[in-house]
């Protein structure tokens, strides 16, 4: 037995009997169960002290609320415990590797959280006089400048609220530009490896989708693009680097062909993290590209947002940017004023959201960019690509690369052929990673690869961290090949929950809490 200097044992004298043991509370040591807010809160409890104002003559025109809402309240200590306990059931980047391909889960610097809370940036209203917020307009202007220089594009729309909203913005600008030429085209080309948001966005605007299959090597086939182009094609929506983690090497020729057909080149910028400071989309023939500030520029994902999706534009599309936009240090908010110009925004297609965009994300992203500088941003891309290739090379002998042993960009894509005959699926493999303390990689995406596993380590992982990650994956692969099925099909064994029945959630949707009495009465 190991003893410390005081002679106390530092390891248990017998193997732990804890696994599987039931406790009275359902808690397991530090892992504490937490009931729903509606089960712990009471309608007559409150965690906020407000002035009692007594009766007064209301002016609600007879529309006063009479019915109880049924909202439970919590005192402050109860609220603290409720949310802290819940938080402890989440995995997070701050805890470990979060290798979700195409999601760019990188470190979120806390300086960004500090600057965004400066009163002069946080506590300002979107409609207070512009004369009282020159610093805010400057923040947006500076961020716009960084984005334009990094991408080599002359104009930018700052208001889109997230990546998909940015896609909508780009496709609206393209539609508006075609309309200005007196054209309405019907088709948009979308590679099969694209994010689902691409076809969904185009369809929202009434376009029909022409799916472009991937070539044997995972990239888009220039000849197939050419065959599908016509004077009825509005645009191609291409992700570059693509979702297979590969740079579309024919991109310039694709852009030329698209332009020759009178169409526009929409680039999905989800994977910008691989090429910052290495190449500029503006030099590659791109007409517009959204930038996910919550991926590349580290604004926190927050369990599903908020994001921010500014869109950069080429000269050809610059006149069509949405309102509001910044011109000569001023926020242009209305069509008549916009039309006075001749360049950016002079033929604006209108408004996409109530105010000026995700200021809270702008401040964080600008803080991040200034911190890194031109040199740091380049280093980010180089390290992101280096880390991904390191993982690829350390696993390629025992996992399977669908497109051969060639360098990847910021993410490494594997398929499930290495699991063939093992009885283990991609899903099982991913759930077993949870037991090892890792968030799984992106699974079953992109769709062009069977049982896809897309690993994006980002630049935030150390070499030692990756070595352990790789060792853990290798151990899992050996276990799968050795037939240790239980480790996979029953996984996760050690998470707060066992495998969750997602089918049941969809078949019998229960989407809100209802009081137990009412629930019984309804049955």
């Amino acid at each position, binding site marked *: 037995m190991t003893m410390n200097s005081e002679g106390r044992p530092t390891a248990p004298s017998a193997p732990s009997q804890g696994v599987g043991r039931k406790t009275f509370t359902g808690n397991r040591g530090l892992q504490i169960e937490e009931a729903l807010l*509606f089960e712990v809160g009471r309608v*007559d*409890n*409150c*965690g*906020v002290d*407000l002035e009692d104002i007594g009766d007064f003559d209301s002016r*609600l025109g007879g529309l006063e609320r009479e019915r109880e809402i*049924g*909202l439970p309240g919590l005192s*402050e200590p109860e609220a603290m415990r409720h*949310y802290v306990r819940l938080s*402890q*059931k989440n995995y997070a980047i701050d805890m470990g590797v*979060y290798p979700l391909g195409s999601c760019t889960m990188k470190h979120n610097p806390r300086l960004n*959280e500090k*600057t965004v809370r400066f*009163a002069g940036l946080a506590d*300002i*209203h979107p*409609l207070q006089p512009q004369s009282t917020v020159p*610093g805010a307009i400057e923040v947006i202007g500076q961020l716009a400048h960084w984005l334009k*220089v990094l991408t080599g594009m002359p104009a930018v729309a700052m208001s889109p609220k997230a990546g998909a909203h940015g896609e909508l913005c780009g496709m609206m600008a393209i539609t508006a530009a075609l309309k200005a030429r007196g054209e309405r085209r019907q088709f948009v080309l979308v590679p099969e490896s694209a994010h689902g*948001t691409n*076809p*969904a966005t185009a*369809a*929202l605007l*009434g376009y029909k989708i022409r799916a472009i299959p991937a070539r044997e090597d995972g990239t888009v086939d220039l000849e197939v693009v050419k065959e599908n182009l016509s004077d009825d094609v509005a645009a191609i929506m291409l992700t570059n680097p693509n979702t297979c983690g590969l*740079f579309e090497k024919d991109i310039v020729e694709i852009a030329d062909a698209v332009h020759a057909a009178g169409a526009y080149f929409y680039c999905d910028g989800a994977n910008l993290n691989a090429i910052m400071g290495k190449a500029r989309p503006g030099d590659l023939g791109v007409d517009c590209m959204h930038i996910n500030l919550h991926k590349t520029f580290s604004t926190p*994902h*927050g*369990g599903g*947002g*908020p*994001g*921010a999706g500014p869109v950069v534009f080429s000269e050809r599309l610059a006149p069509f940017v949405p309102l509001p936009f910044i011109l000569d240090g001023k926020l242009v908010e209305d069509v008549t004023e916009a039309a006075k110009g001749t360049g950016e925004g002079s033929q604006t297609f209108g408004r*996409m959201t*109530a*105010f000026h965009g995700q*200021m*809270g994300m702008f401040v964080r992203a600008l803080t991040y960019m200034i911190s890194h500088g031109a*040199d740091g*941003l380049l280093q980010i891309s*180089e390290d992101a690509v280096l880390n991904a290739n390191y993982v690829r090379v350390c696993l390629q002998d025992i996992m399977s690369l669908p497109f051969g042993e060639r360098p990847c960009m910021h993410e490494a894509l594997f398929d499930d052929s290495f699991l063939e005959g093992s009885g283990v699926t991609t899903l099982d493999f991913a*759930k077993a990673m949870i037991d090892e303390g890792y968030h*799984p990689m992106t699974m079953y*995406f992109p769709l062009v690869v069977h049982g896809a596993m897309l690993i994006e380590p980002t630049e935030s*992982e*150390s*070499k030692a961290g990756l070595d352990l990650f790789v060792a853990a994956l290798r151990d899992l692969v050996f276990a799968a090949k050795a037939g240790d099925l239980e480790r996979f099909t029953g996984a*996760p064994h050690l998470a*707060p*929950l066992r*495998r*969750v029945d*997602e089918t049941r*959630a969809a078949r019998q949707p229960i989407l*809100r*809490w209802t009081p137990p009495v009412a629930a019984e009465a309804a049955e």
Partner: protein
Amino acid sequence: MRYLPLTDSDRQAMLERIGVDQINDLFADIPKDKLLADLVDLPLAVGELQVERQLAALAAKNVAAGSVPFFVGGGAYRHHVPATVDHLIQRSEFLTAYTPYQPEISQGTLQTLYEFQTQVALLTGMEVANASMYDGSTGCAEAVLMAQRITKRPKAILSGTLHPHYRAVVENMSEFSGHDLVSLEGAPGAVEDIISLIDDQTACIVVQSPGFYGDLVNLAPLAEAAHAAGALLIAVVTETISFGAIKSPGEMGADIVVAEGQSIGNGLSFGGPYVGLFATRQKYLRQMPGRICGETVDADGQRCFALTLSTREQHIRREKATSNICTNSGLCCLAFSIHMSLLGEVGLRKLAQLNHRNAILLADQLEKISGVELMTGAFFNEFTIKVPGNAATIIEALAAKNVLGGIPVSRLEPGRDDLADLIVVAATEINTNEDRAAFVVALNEVLS
């Protein structure tokens, strides 16, 4: 660089392991003539102290709402947010988690989303709610598209009570998606006959209450008329606190409710990020856009939660999805939900009363100023005044006296000369007697 863990020796060792000589070998697929030879023309990396100074200097150029008597609303409101909220949303496990695609290690996010959906359904008086939209305005455009899918009819009618920017967002979406739209002109206290415009092509009518000018609208007769014609009523609320004082839209017969949730838990932040609330009837569930969290069990039969009904969504259905939305307002939902659970029924009702009372006090005081006319009859915490002169000029003059006294309607309706002398004024619980007195004094000075 402080955020990058790799050292040069790590990089060298990794390149060797990969089997390449230099980093650019990994970028060989980028056309050679497109590879940048030099750094882009931007400043170089700086330390934390220097960055903080730069951002502080930018912040210092702005007038923070909390530093002056403040009465600006129009879809974004300044309320007190308890310190607990900001502390909790900064916990690493909430802040730095992704969308909860792996429910076994995301129950924190999922349970809070389920609680959020329930809170939203209760507040709006609806049966189901989603896990948020980007904000109220984009939620409003999505609601119109949803009504068009449900009714298979092309036309939407927008009431003049709708926030002009919301109207612009819906107009833009309708134009691009090829739908018909009728927009009524707004004005404070306007009596509009929206019912007579409903025909057999009408998918929905969209009405905001409290309206942009502050007016309260009884939605019940509108819902009845819409339903009689096979159309839906979409109710829009930009001030969520009002749910604590006013009958819920669900109670009055709305089919879809969209609201801006910023007032609860979320600061002004110059317009974003905010959180769109979206709720509807159970029967329309399958046409609802956005993420939804539902209850289920794990392999041991334990109650738990997971994202569900994703066959509506873009990552499964691609071009056949109900919407293209992916990332929504996760952390803002959490802030909303925490603040709402601290308030509870008691707190929300009290807060709503406080807001309403402060607005009445302010309206009464402003109305006494010579030449100022109160244009709104029934209101919650926002109303419109008519001033003798150009409203935009007067607002600027007030700002010069360190009072942020509302929104000149002309900023949002620049083409409408008939509205150039109107100011929309909001009062909340943050306003003190001194704030109101300062506003009255400053407005008196500006007008004299």
